[in-house]
């Protein structure tokens, strides 16, 4: 599995360097013009796009055919992709943190909260993107993702409209119990991520290569 992650890192190394340069530029602009959102958005894009790009690279050379004849199980191949994705998120959040160390206006607590939220956001993106891309491939997956990315929003709107969940009450509860938010967010992302991994493994195990 380490070999697969290492391969992905080598394949994506030039893109990673490019992203790092973009991070520095956006980070500088963010600090100079007080537009931190620019860099945060880039971190989320990197977390979401690079694992998908690595799937696209694998598809182009039909790497999966060789990987599946190597001493690796299909589960390991999928897990390696997720670990690579987590590694990218952690790395890009760490770079983002280092850049914002130069911003003396932002308190340390805020920086740490920002890093936490970025990690959770990045992982949530990956949890949605990876199964779709593993199932349909990077090209089709991209289009399908565009089509379904607003489904969670529609779902929340639909649920609140039907009255099954009292959304204002939920918001009020969260406002009164702010200390619970990190636990709720972490638990939600962990559950979604675990479900995503399980689904991707299932998809990949049944896939004809």
């Amino acid at each position, binding site marked *: 599995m380490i070999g697969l992650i290492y391969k992905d890192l080598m394949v994506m190394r030039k893109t990673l360097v490019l992203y790092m340069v973009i991070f520095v530029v956006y980070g500088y602009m963010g600090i100079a013009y007080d537009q931190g959102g620019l860099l945060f958005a880039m971190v989320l894009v990197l977390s979401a796009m690079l694992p998908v790009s690595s799937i696209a690279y694998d598809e182009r050379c039909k790497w999966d055919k060789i990987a599946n004849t190597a001493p690796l199980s299909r589960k390991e191949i999928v897990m390696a992709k997720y670990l690579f994705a987590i590694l990218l998120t952690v790395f890009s959040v760490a770079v983002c943190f280092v850049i914002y160390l130069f911003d003396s206006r932002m308190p340390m607590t805020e920086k740490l909260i920002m890093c936490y939220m970025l990690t959770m956001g990045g992982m949530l993106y990956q949890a949605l993107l990876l199964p779709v891309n593993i199932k349909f491939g990077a090209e089709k997956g991209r289009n399908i993702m565009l089509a379904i990315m607003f489904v969670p929003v529609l779902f929340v709107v639909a649920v609140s409209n039907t009255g099954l969940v009292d959304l204002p009450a939920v918001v009020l509860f969260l406002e009164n119990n702010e200390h619970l938010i990190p636990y709720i967010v972490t638990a939600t992302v962990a559950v979604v991520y675990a479900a995503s991994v399980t689904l991707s493994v299932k998809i990949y195990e049944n896939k*004809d290569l």
Partner: protein
Amino acid sequence: MNNAIEIKNLCKNYPSFSLKDVNITLPKGYIMGYVGANGAGKSTTIASLLGLIKSDSGFCLIDGKQMSQMTKAEKSGVGVVLDECNFPETLTWKQVDKFMKKIYHNWDSEKFTSDCIKWKLPEKTQVFKYSKGMKMKLSIAAAMCHGAKLLVLDEATSGLDPVVRNEILDILLDFVQDEENSVFMSSHIISDLEKVCDYITFIKDGRIIFSAEKERLTEQYGILRCSNSDFEKIDKTAVIAFNQNSFSTDALVHKSRIAGDYIIDKANVEDIMLYYMKEGKE
């Protein structure tokens, strides 16, 4: 277990193509050529053998085990070369070596490096800049440096010039010098198979037409050359297929079933395949 490969009653259905009851047995220590026209089912059989696709029925065993049930050590004993080089194109062979040795516990980095140097693969050039021959050599070098006892090649020599093809065939012949090693290779370049194979399996439209020792095939079949009137007298159960013009007939026949004094030339594997591929009697 003396069979390197055992495929029994393998079936796989697609909307426009079916693999029907494929049976193949390759004893250890031999090279089997798997031949057929494009789209006959060679790659589907190999994909099933390697566990890349799920068959609808039947089974494929390598050294007595299905690929999906093999331990990691057993999987290392299978080297695979497909019709394209499947390594990431932006890497060099040095980088391929670096990550592959983290995948295979018994990856022989020294052998891989020496093969790449011996076959003049440029060290700093990315795979996508390689010629087709270089890509194939890289794939073969990778397939042979983790203690493989069985090499499976799918159209590995297609699109290569004769010099490189010969080099690759020599590598395969060297490989089976160890009697425990076997090769299963598909190709539609019959002359290549004729040079190196001990066994030939012929597939047409998803069905195995025959699977036999090469020597037995060439002993069994012959090309009958006779006049059209003589051809009329021939027992037609002996005839596989024929070419006829206004004066004479050439036919692929079972030699043992032809009685009488006729000219029967030796049929090589290519003749046998071509006649079998022809429309007409099978």
